[in-house]
């Protein structure tokens, strides 16, 4: 049994027949072949799979693809425009906000959301905002620095 869904992903319209149980993360990675969002836990605890659905950051391992029917989805691949990095991406690069890079796409999508809700967050607000995303490499300090730099740059 499959169900037809229409999803706009990074500005491009997609139509696919999918199983109702197919997770959005698997749809994005294996059907649409956007492998930027990662799977770190499959239980919505690590945030590596974070994407935007209709402008809100969500963990795409805990949403079915059919729930995104009609929605507009932005993944990490959709952030840079005309070869220019998004300010949050640039900030992560400049501030050494990543090491192995596996959590990074989810982190960047979360940071974009943090700044959309609060353009000038305090350190405490940044750390609170990052609570749902695990990073095992950086100790978060340079990620916090990246958020501050992105905020300063007007991301």
């Amino acid at each position: 049994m499959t169900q037809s869904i229409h999803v706009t992903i990074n500005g491009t319209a997609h139509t696919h027949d999918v199983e109702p149980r197919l997770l959005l993360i698997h749809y994005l990675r294996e059907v649409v072949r956007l492998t930027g969002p990662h799977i770190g836990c499959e239980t919505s605890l690590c945030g590596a799979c974070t994407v935007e659905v209709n402008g809100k950051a969500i963990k795409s391992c805990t949403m079915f693809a059919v729930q995104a029917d009609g929605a507009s989805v932005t993944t990490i691949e959709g952030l840079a425009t005309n070869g220019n990095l998004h300010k949050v991406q640039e900030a992560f690069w400049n501030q050494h906000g990543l090491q192995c890079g596996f959590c990074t796409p989810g982190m960047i999508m979360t940071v974009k959301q943090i700044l959309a809700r609060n353009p000038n967050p305090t350190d405490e607000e940044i750390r609170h905002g990052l609570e749902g995303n695990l990073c095992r490499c950086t100790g978060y300090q340079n990620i916090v620095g990246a958020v501050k730099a992105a905020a300063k740059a007007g991301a």
Partner: protein
Amino acid sequence: MATIATKPKTYVGQSIRRREDPRLITGTATYVDDIQMPGMYYAAILRSPHAAANIRSIDIKGAQKVKGVLIVFTGKDTVDAGTVPCAASLPGLRVPHHTVLATERVYYVGHPVAVVVATDRYVARDAADLIEVDYDVRQAVADPEKALAPGAPAVHPQWPDNTAFTFHQEGGDVDKAFAEADVIVKERIVSQRLIPNPMETRGVVAEWRAAERSLNLYTSTQAPHLVRSLLAQILGLDENRLRVVAPEVGGGFGCKIDTYAEEILLAFVAMKIHKPVKWIETRRENFTCTIHGRGHVDYYELAAKRDGTITGIKLKIIQDLGAYLQLLTPAIPTLSVLMMPGLYRTKNIRADVVGAFTNCTATDAYRGAGRPEATHGIERMVDVLAAELKMDPVDVRLKNFVHNDEFPFPTATGLVYDSGDYAAPLKMALDLADYPGLRLQQEQARKEGRLMGIGMSTYGEICAFGPSPATPAGGWESATVKIEPSGKVTVLTGISPHGQGEETTFAQIAADELGVDIDDILVSHGDTSLVQYGIGTFGSRSTAVGGTALYFALQDLKVKMKKFGAVLLDTEDVTLANGRCTDNKTGKSVTVKQIAAASYRAMKLPPNTEPGLVSTHFWEPPNFTFPFGAHLVVTEVDRATGNIAIKRYIAVDDCGNILNPMIVEGQVHGGVAQGLGQALWEQAVYDDNGQLVTGEFTDYTMPRAHMMPFIEASHTVTPTPVNPLGVKGVGEAGTIGASPAVVNSVVDALSPLGVRHLDMPLTPEKIWKIVTNAAGRTA
């Protein structure tokens, strides 16, 4: 941390932005799970829910009937697939026969029992659930001390004492030291079992090309050449027809050094089905099937003089090995023994290690691998001694440090410390903290009834593994430098970085040595079909050993470049510097690009010189390196909740020369996070039945952003004489320095309540009970 986006004159020593980052921040990097191949199948592994059981029967019929299932294998099908390797050797070591799938018995929760191969991962998982295994559940043992007690259930029936090995090391005259001691302090110190948890779990894609008898294996590993050699041996394949690729690897922290059952299994499956096949470990699998770390129970005794001079150390280590021996499992506690004197001068040591089998996941190398346990132990004991003697822990440390004029310093455990100024980072940390001011604040806090603590660790570590005779595999590292005809430079390194940033630091080294633009350099790694044999990335070795191999390859190449430059300039007296070869008499010069073109065009060759500009160097290190440092932590304990607030975290590390301060600082931050995780939150908890009860991120509390303090990172610089770069290694330093500093700080905070020692993790519950009980006593 400000970084440099513009181009400096020289690159080494600068915080150059990482060259690996553009692909990582745009989501275009290729990790194992991102690999798709035409006609690829997916494997799901059925695992034991029991820690100890005999397998009566396995019924796979239900799984076989599922549409989309290609084949199912159980233990009896894979008996010829070889066994999972252990590379460590110790006298009398008992190595269990470790088949890739369980045959008659399961030994730990997560033990692989069957593999289902299907058209997609959902179908494979569905079908795995339909396999029926009839288990005869037996009594498990999950605690190493219980496992060694008489009458404990035998993990392996043939070894009823559950002892895999014993190991003894002794130096100096321990008995005399203890007989003549003014004071002896004793403590039982636990370094609890931890779970490495890189954000990317393990995963394998295997592709068998039958007509070529060649196997391509993509695996999330830290040591692709090692995997290739071991797999060739295990599977009986020609090593030169086996290509192992570590693509983008999402963290390792030691747990991806091993060659695992799943790598062998996936190769076996691919060779059976003649199709590519992928397996991606779920997080739940990662918790139970990828190696764990630590798992020590240590019994320490310190002998000392009244003035604080440490005269002897006795240590008994009970190492929880788990059920099987993975690649380096039994070697890890021997590293603890090597580093047991820490930075201190005492030559009288005695260590006894017992390796205990338990019905748990194997332990092995996790960031620090044996050294955090050793450092935690000795640094706790120094504080215990200081408390006993009513001395300042600073003074006890200063009294016992190896003196600056004693290097190279031979230790009681047979090592030779390379270089050091052990008091320097401690003094810097004390200055940064305003230590006397802090003690005054503490006095005031205590008057107000607040529990403020000041704690420190002065750690030493052994890095840059290492001289080959002292390591389980070769300890050298390799590099190839190719200057292409266009003048562009390709570096192939035998290390296998996965977050440490050597695509950047190695480009910095090469750009400076050759005097070329860093953008002309590409650093590649991780593919055995591309890169000469290498050892890999672990043990804080990549720059100290791999970077040095690169340095020497560059020197060889420069000699050849000068020869070609001299031919082009029609002279013999030339200098190679700043990317030009210059005639010392006329001042005329040619560029690296011109030299490269001439070397391949080969119109006129220098005497006895081949065309082309390629150089490979294998560098064998003459010694390990020994970084050191001091961490100082200020804490305050909340009496009402038991919560520990870290008020200041000061890390002063000395890793020798620093190639890229930004990257070094990042390594310290991440290392501290993992050490802090051990000190405060993380613990692999098994119940008496061998069930892992902290088997998800909900229960296994890794640090999150809001839990981490701001780390004030500084450095002293004491270059090592072991390699020409003067670098020591920094990957594990933060982890090693952190846990004792934090625990010492909290013990200091609670010392007015009579607390002398606390075992990790210092959870609010544990602390609250101590504070509440103390309040009850005084009420």
